[in-house]
């Protein structure tokens, strides 16, 4: 479980494999949200344009990063993560993180102000 607060960045370190002709147009799409029965409800997300895919005669591993900034668009609570590789021939490829592994601390709140007074 990873605790995050507003203003923090969550860096997704992604890897995938490629084989075949050089390719451009792929994107890594990373999101924080809720994984449900009908898909992944994204709340925060970011994309990284994949570049430098060269001709690979055999499977070659590429590693790239996507940062998602934690903003007030997301409420405090526990959330899920998802990354998908899009813009590629064939179907998109998905990766899901462990459920409820991201915990957003929420906005700063104050309470229990107490005051006493004396003659000074």
């Amino acid at each position, binding site marked *: 479980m990873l605790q995050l607060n507003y203003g923090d960045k969550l860096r997704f370190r992604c890897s995938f494999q490629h*084989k075949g002709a050089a390719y451009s147009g792929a994107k890594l799409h990373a999101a924080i949200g809720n994984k449900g029965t009908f898909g992944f409800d994204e709340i925060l997300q970011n994309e990284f344009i994949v570049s430098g895919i060269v001709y690979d005669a055999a499977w070659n591993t590429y590693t790239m990063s996507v940062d998602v900034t934690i903003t007030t668009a997301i409420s405090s609570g526990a959330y899920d993560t998802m990354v998908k590789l899009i813009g590629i021939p064939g179907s998109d490829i998905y990766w899901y993180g462990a459920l409820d592994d991201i915990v957003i601390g929420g906005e700063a709140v104050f309470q229990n102000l107490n005051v006493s007074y004396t003659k000074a």
Partner: protein
Amino acid sequence: MEQQQIAVKVLRQTGAGYYTEITAIEAPASAIAGSLVQIKVTIKNKYSSVISIMVAGALEYGVSPRPAISFPNYWANVEAGASHSFNGSFNMPSHSVTIYAFSYYYYYYGFDSSWHTDDERTKNVSLSELQTQFQSLSASYAKV
């Protein structure tokens, strides 16, 4: 290895060369550009005794001179009626190619002792486009 010599030229037999016949070229039907293509050329000795047989090869795809095919062991002494396979290779260009394989025999008559071309055979290798494929997406994350 000492080369075996042929003293007398015989009449051409049906098909193939005088003394040799390329009976097969083994090569893939297609290959991707840049890949190393392995081939095997089998040559039969049609003569009545052992002779030296040599192989050579070239690629035809509109380039002049034709690029040569590499045969690390390009000749052998072959018994009468026997066949010998020569392994070769080339780098697939970005075009479909025709393999031209040639057989030679070592000829000796008077002052003439040299390799003589004898048979020829071809085989096509088409260019294969390797489709772009992706797999195995995985990720880890950390606060930065």
